[in-house]
């Protein structure tokens, strides 16, 4: 059994470390690093954020910023052409060697 938590923000990737237990709220299996303790038993960072009394750590902070970007800008399904009118094709001025 491996950890089913997805890490990363821009390039989400499965953690895949050996699972030590599971989230008592959503059931996914978790490694030590992605287990957050709190009043309802061990939880994944997502469940820890949506339930009271869980400790905050790097993983829960990352998860809450990830969900705020998702809420603000949408996830994979927002690939529409709705904003196409604000898009124009042109050369980038001052695009220097540093950037490539």
């Amino acid at each position: 059994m491996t950890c089913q938590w997805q890490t990363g923000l821009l390039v989400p990737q499965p953690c895949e470390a050996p699972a030590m237990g599971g989230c008592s709220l959503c059931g996914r299996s978790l490694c030590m690093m992605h287990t957050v303790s709190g009043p309802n038993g061990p939880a994944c960072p997502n469940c820890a954020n949506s339930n009271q009394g869980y400790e905050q750590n790097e993983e829960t902070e990352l998860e809450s910023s990830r969900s705020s970007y998702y809420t603000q800008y949408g996830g994979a399904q927002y690939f529409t052409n709705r904003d196409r009118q604000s898009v124009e094709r042109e050369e980038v001025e001052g695009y220097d060697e540093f950037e490539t």
Partner: protein
Amino acid sequence: MKLNDLSPVARQAAEAQAIRGEWEYGAFDQLLKQLIAYDAAMDALIAFRLKWVVVAVILAFLGVFVGIIVIDNDEAATGSAMLVGGIVHLIVAIVLWRKAKKKNLPENALAMLQQLFRQVRKDLDPKATIRVNVDLSGPTQAKCGPKKELPANGFVSRYQYVYADPWCQLRLQLRDGYKLTLRQVDQLIELQRTKRKARGGYKTKTKYKKLCRLTATIVPPTPVEWAGQPKVDPTWERLRVAKKKGLDVAVLDRWFVYKEKFGRPIQNPSGADAVGMLYRLCSMRPAEAK
């Protein structure tokens, strides 16, 4: 945290007011942490020295006032010592305060960098480094453009100065081979307006506005067909696709404006603002890349 408590690398960056070169995430985060702590100590020192200047002004006034009385009472030596001492003390206080102010670092810029990299650290290619070219010296006199005279508009005169500060260039490589760059250019616009006072004489007022332009780009490892357009704010943002070395590079610009009632605005876009831009550029990747 004083300059001597910093690691050699952080000390060098604090003295140069700049961060340059290739960095591992861990070392870069450590550096920012140290610079933020150093800046907090500097802010406290500047506040203390400013209070000292205020006290020195009062003492100098007293020195002049009492000194003249004492001189009048035929104690010329004591009187002039009081008079001169108060003024010299004031000059020393002002010099020390200005010296500390010059070494100050822009805490909002440091906080942005720290937050940005903490949020994307898991996405970085562990084998690649972060390329950094950051100037922390702020809108110094050297960055000020020529004085420009504006239409008077009822004033005696109106002059504008523009400080151009392209202070931030970052390049990072993601795990999936895509490269991201982020650039920030600040413009501090200073407006000096002089009007005639009712009882004669002139009065000059200075107003400031800060304009920040954040530019984020995503460079694919190989030619790609971008999957679609992310959400773009038509007022403050612009998304473009540019051809660069045979690759379609997506570029997202965002503008920020800050005003302050008194003095220069010191606000800066947050790390979340920057990550939000990178996040949207990354969402343009075709499905197989994600």
